[in-house]
């Protein structure tokens, strides 16, 4: 980078810092953004969050790198990094993170028609519309290409019938980006990418209760749902490519979900006590804690290394590796926290357990999903074996 670029960036950084100092509500500093992202009700009920959202999207920074004409900030990649860094410095976060902004937006920018971009992107950039993702089906989880939801042309309108599952927050979503089958004679080559208004007649949503009590995954039943022709992104039967691109973004974001976790040493010392040498006073748990701390640290280092190596764009093949390592590190950690709690890690609700204990227990239960969603552990291993390591397919099949 030349000196002009560097000094421009420095100027930008100080502008950002000044704007953030003025506009970011201190009450939100270092708050975990996920509850706001995952739950519309939580987001709606926090006035400071709403203020912060409004200020950010007015500034265009709800979608910092999108073109200004679509409601974005028009920032360069370098500027976007500076914005992220400056936010991190004061514990701020982008309040407009959402499925729409993170997954669908970049996909529309690449594949949608001009008209579609103009129609769908600005409401996402402004945080006004919530999107959900209708990909998985009961018979097509890891094997997405087997999906069955039919979409037929009925006099210039698409008519959709089928069932989607594992649709995050469908019960709070306004719209759904959906994979549908438009040709039953081919597998990947018969899939199209369709945008469906969740208020359409024939759309029914049922939340799925998970073993952790979580209810944000849903089943979505689609019965004779009529969708305008203009809601298809890309050409008919060409949706697979779009989906793959989008899923790569999903894995990117999942792999990054758990980069920096605080150590468990403090909690363990408090729970278990220390011996006369100051070491945690349970050798069995202590060794597992140390092993997990080491893997967690090495995972964070790996995440940073991959980010550095892939700087300059493009989607890295390392994503599958990161996904599996991240999931296993996080699962081991959740398991360890519950083990640390012992009998106090059995609480579901009510008297006798602290809020933190119940949260940890439910987090432990929920952690089993880490190696299932976003491409299961097994599917990622297949990808690593074939695409990264170049191992062969079975002959004669």
């Amino acid at each position, binding site marked *: 980078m030349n000196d002009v670029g560097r000094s421009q960036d420095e100027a930008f950084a100080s502008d950002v810092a000044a704007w953030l100092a003025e506009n970011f509500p201190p009450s939100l500093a270092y708050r975990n953004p996920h509850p706001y992202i995952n739950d519309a009700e939580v987001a709606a009920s926090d006035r400071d969050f709403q203020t912060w959202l409004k200020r950010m999207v007015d500034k265009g920074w709800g979608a910092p790198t999108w073109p200004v004409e679509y409601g974005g900030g028009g920032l360069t990649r370098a500027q976007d990094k500076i914005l992220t860094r400056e936010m991190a410095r004061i514990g701020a976060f982008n309040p407009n993170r959402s499925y729409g902004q993170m997954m669908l937006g970049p996909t529309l920018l690449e594949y949608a028609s001009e008209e579609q971009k103009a129609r769908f992107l600005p409401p996402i950039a402004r945080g006004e519309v919530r999107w959900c993702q209708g990909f*998985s089906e*009961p*018979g097509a*989880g*890891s*094997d997405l290409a*087997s999906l069955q939801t039919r979409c037929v042309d009925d006099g210039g309108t698409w008519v959709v019938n089928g069932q989607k*599952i*594992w649709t995050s927050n469908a019960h709070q979503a306004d719209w759904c980006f959906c994979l549908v089958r438009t040709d039953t004679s081919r597998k990947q080559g018969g899939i199209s990418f369709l945008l469906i208004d969740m208020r359409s007649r024939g759309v029914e949503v049922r939340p*799925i*209760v*998970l*073993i952790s*009590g979580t209810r944000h995954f849903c089943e979505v039943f689609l019965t004779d749902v009529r969708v305008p022709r203009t809601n298809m992104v890309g050409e008919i039967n060409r949706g697979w490519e779009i989906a793959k691109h989008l899923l790569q973004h999903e894995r990117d974001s999942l792999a990054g979900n758990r980069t920096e976790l605080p150590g468990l040493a403090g909690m363990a010392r408090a*729970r278990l006590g220390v011996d006369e040498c100051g070491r945690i006073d*349970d050798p*069995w*748990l202590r060794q597992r804690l140390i092993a997990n701390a080491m893997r967690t640290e090495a995972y964070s280092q790996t995440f940073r290394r991959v980010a550095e190596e892939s700087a300059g764009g493009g989607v890295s093949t390392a994503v599958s590796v990161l996904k599996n390592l991240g999931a296993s590190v996080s699962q081991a950690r959740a398991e360890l926290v*519950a*083990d640390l*709690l*012992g*009998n*106090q*890690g*059995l*609480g*579901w*609700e*009510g*008297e*006798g*357990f602290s809020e933190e204990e119940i949260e940890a*227990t439910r987090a432990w*239960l929920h952690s*089993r*999903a880490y*190696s*299932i*969603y976003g491409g*299961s*552990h*097994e599917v990622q*291993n297949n990808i690593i074996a074939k695409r990264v390591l170049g191992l062969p397919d079975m002959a004669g099949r």
Partner: protein
Amino acid sequence: MAKLSEEQGMLRDAASDWVRESAPLARLRRLREHDTGTGYEPELYEGMVQMGWTGILVPEEYGGSAFGCLGMGLVLEQLGRQLVASPLVATAVASASVLALGGSAQQQRRWLPGIAEGRVLATLALDEGDRHAPQAITTTAIRNADGWRLDGSKRPVCYGLAADLLVVAARISDGDGHDGGIGLFLVEASADGLRRTRLHEIDTRGAAIVAFDGVQVSDAGVLGAPGGAGPLLDRALDRARACTAMEMLGAAQQAFETTLDHLKTRVQFGQLIGAFQALQHRAAGLYGELELTRSAVEAALRALDEDDADSPARVSLAKALAGDTFRLVAAEAIQLHGGIGMTEEHDAGLYFKRARSADLSYGDAAFHRERYGVLRGY
């Protein structure tokens, strides 16, 4: 399963039939919805009483069959398969064993027939916090003119809310904090100064906090020698541990078989997923763990029945392996079922929750690995 006597075989088959007909997993779901904290269905427990299971560890003179630990294990294995929730281990194994192994004739007469006939639910009130720690009891029993005064709080007490009788472990004290060893006290749930609070846990086992605020126990309620009850407690605990291990093995076995069925029926990428070699090898690995665990659990139960001096180490081996294996198998059951395994509606999660809860009962795998290590000179 190693060779069984004819009677043992009949006992197992009867248990298998009964569980299938009367206590499938759907009963646990129903209980979970309507549980008020007692953690069991009286109707089902009555069925077990009718089958004679509450008397398996009760001497014949008090209405039991004295059929032994392996017999009890065979029943619990079948109950474990469908995660039947009942105070059978707490009452008819742990408490019955304390009484049968260390009670006076009067105490046995007073309580054992009731346990065998299902009129009395009993449980140990032992642990006091995060972990199973029989050596770390702080509840005190202070000598006074009328016998003993108990103060302290126990948690979690399995089936503590339902129990009629509590076998309370307390530290004998002269009132000035002097440590006089462990005593076991028979306390009726109706005693003055006793207070119970429900613990709502992920698994259904009627857990409660039981607080003792100056509860008075007469000398007739003292089990064995006050201050020297540690070995008695340990013997009774070992029976509860080995029987729980067998219950866990049954549950793990069922979770494994359900998963195998799934592997044989679920199609992905145009194949039965059970045809994928990576999953085949994982299944083979789990099978090996189950086999190791079965051997260890059976050996422990037999050692207890033979009063083998090596029983403590074998029991700890069994309970530790059962804990590790059940937790592993249950986690793999969810993973191999994929998304559906994560849903409340699917059974895998119930096994997963029971695995942690059962592991923690009467000492988890880490506790028993450590105990085994010490006993084996490591």
